[in-house]
């Protein structure tokens, strides 16, 4: 079994926290869920917290003058506090709840990109971005003319820092928007260096932490970035909730996003004024039940310990790197020095989609396609897509072995 995992981290026990992992799958096979990078499974504590909220303490927030509404408001704001502590935000008002990290990045593109950044300034992204960190900046470019620059990725799947330096050199860059961890290559980017370089050239930094926040401890103050985005459903929390963290000084300068209830200070037909952050960016009834679920998820991973989770993942990464290298005909995409538990690959004999169908038969859930990173696949000449296995804190080395075996058999099947 998982003999190399640290004693404190008992993956067998952790797996018992996730009801779905003990659900028998088609033909009695156990579920080998290797698609946590797309969305993670939910532990019992998250499910229970949401149920408890709906059964005992539900009401709309911020509006009521009665106990139940106070309870709900307290629960919602407690989730904000837990989120702030989770990434070591300096101030709880720096946490804006969104519906997912895609909305978080769009919010920045909309409110900061259009409202604060100068018209002539450029945005730098990289070749390894998820569409969620490409398309909002394209829309900004097409709408307002802000140039979009693309930092190269080297053949190992690492950011080309010289290229980043070149893009920054003319001082025209307003924002560098980069993934903290790639959802295809697994690459963890050198965020402190990126921030130092960008700030030295007067550019702000947004980090797409959708993947990274799940895999390691994030400290936004230590990193020194300006914006950080992540999403609840990948962090073992519910769908329908994401997080934008931004320095208060930025939030204070940004115009609001959506208009409606809860984001205003006063409304007349002639003129409305805005609530202070974070209310200004949270129009309408927020994702109350989901915030409660996210809070439980954060408490859950915090209790296990992000460092223990990272250590477990390092074990998995080392195991997978070695094990997949022995699968004949398999080409791994990305060999970054610093990488997390996401492995995209091509198998010579089988198209990714066919492969996923086969693996599914063996109870192994992997993704096939371009994983919302079309340009990255084009960069590596794999327009047809890859197959991707991505790990969660419940993933075992045994599961990786099962994957490797199944891949070898699949190759035989198609040859």
């Amino acid at each position: 079994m998982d003999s190399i995992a640290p004693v404190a981290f008992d993956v067998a026990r952790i797996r018992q926290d996730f009801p779905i992992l003990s659900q028998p799958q088609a033909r009695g096979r156990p579920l080998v869920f290797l698609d946590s990078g797309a969305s993670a499974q939910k532990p019992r504590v998250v499910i229970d917290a949401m149920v408890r909220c709906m059964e005992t303490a539900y009401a709309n927030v911020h509006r009521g003058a009665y106990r139940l509404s106070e309870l709900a408001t307290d629960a919602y704001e407690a989730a904000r506090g837990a989120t702030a502590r989770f990434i070591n935000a300096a101030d709880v008002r720096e946490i804006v709840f969104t519906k997912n990290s895609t909305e978080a990045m769009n919010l920045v593109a909309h409110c900061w990109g259009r409202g604060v950044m100068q018209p002539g300034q450029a945005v730098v992204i990289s070749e390894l971005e998820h569409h969620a960190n490409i398309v909002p900046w394209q829309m900004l470019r097409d709408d307002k003319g802000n140039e979009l620059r693309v930092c190269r990725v080297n053949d190992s799947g690492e950011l080309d820092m010289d290229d980043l330096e070149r893009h920054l050199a003319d001082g025209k860059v307003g924002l560098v928007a980069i993934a903290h961890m790639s959802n295809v290559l697994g690459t963890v980017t050198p965020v402190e260096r990126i921030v130092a370089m960008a700030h030295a050239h007067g550019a702000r930094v947004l980090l797409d932490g959708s993947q990274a926040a799940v895999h390691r401890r994030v400290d936004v103050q230590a990193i020194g970035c300006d914006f950080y985005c992540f999403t609840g459903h990948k962090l073992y929390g519910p769908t329908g909730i994401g997080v934008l963290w931004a320095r208060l000084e930025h939030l204070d300068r940004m115009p609001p996003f959506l208009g409606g209830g809860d984001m205003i200070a006063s409304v007349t037909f002639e003129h409305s004024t805005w609530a202070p952050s974070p209310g200004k960016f949270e129009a309408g009834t927020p994702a109350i039940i989901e915030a409660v679920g996210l809070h439980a998820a954060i408490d859950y991973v915090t209790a296990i310990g992000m460092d223990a989770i990272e250590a477990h993942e390092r074990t998995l990464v080392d195991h997978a790197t070695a094990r997949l290298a022995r699968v004949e005909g398999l080409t791994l995409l990305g060999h970054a020095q610093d990488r997390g538990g996401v492995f995209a690959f091509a198998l010579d004999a089988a198209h990714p989609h066919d492969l996923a169908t086969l693996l599914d038969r063996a109870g192994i859930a992997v993704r096939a396609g371009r994983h919302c990173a079309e340009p990255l696949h084009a960069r590596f000449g794999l327009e047809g897509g890859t197959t991707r296995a991505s790990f969660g804190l419940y993933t075992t080395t045994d599961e990786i072995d099962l994957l490797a075996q199944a891949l070898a058999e699949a190759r035989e099947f198609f040859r």
Partner: protein
Amino acid sequence: MTPSTGGQTTGLFDDLRDLYQEVILDHGRKPRNFRRLEDATATARGDNPMCGDRIELFVALAPDGNIADAAFQGRGCAISTASASLMTETVKGKTAAQAKALGATFRELAMTGTCPDCGAELADEMERLAPLSGVHEFPSRVKCATLAWHTLNAALDGTKEASSE
């Protein structure tokens, strides 16, 4: 979890032989009519944005209105490649209307696994396409099988582009 040890073929995927019949694997590996048709009178491009499959279809209509030749290029999974390959073979000699009717029938086969309305006049053709009927058990793969046929419709209708979404 106890993994089955060793890498020897345990027949893990044996029951997928219904989906991946030998004909499919063969056409998937060595697609027929996999080329550009220089004298094409109708072409169209088909995309499946979800998985990145893409085909370019070429049709040469003879003066008598029959499909004189059909060919394709592109990238795709075994199912979509085999389907395109089988399609180009099957539609040759058909009129545009016959080819489209065949496509409609095939789509029903792919979605349901059966084809109660298959007229006797299409019996031969449908037998040829029958190996693809296994996809109906794999909802996410149905569109792999039908992409080529959507693209054929687009070519014959002159709309140039088809998307299998």
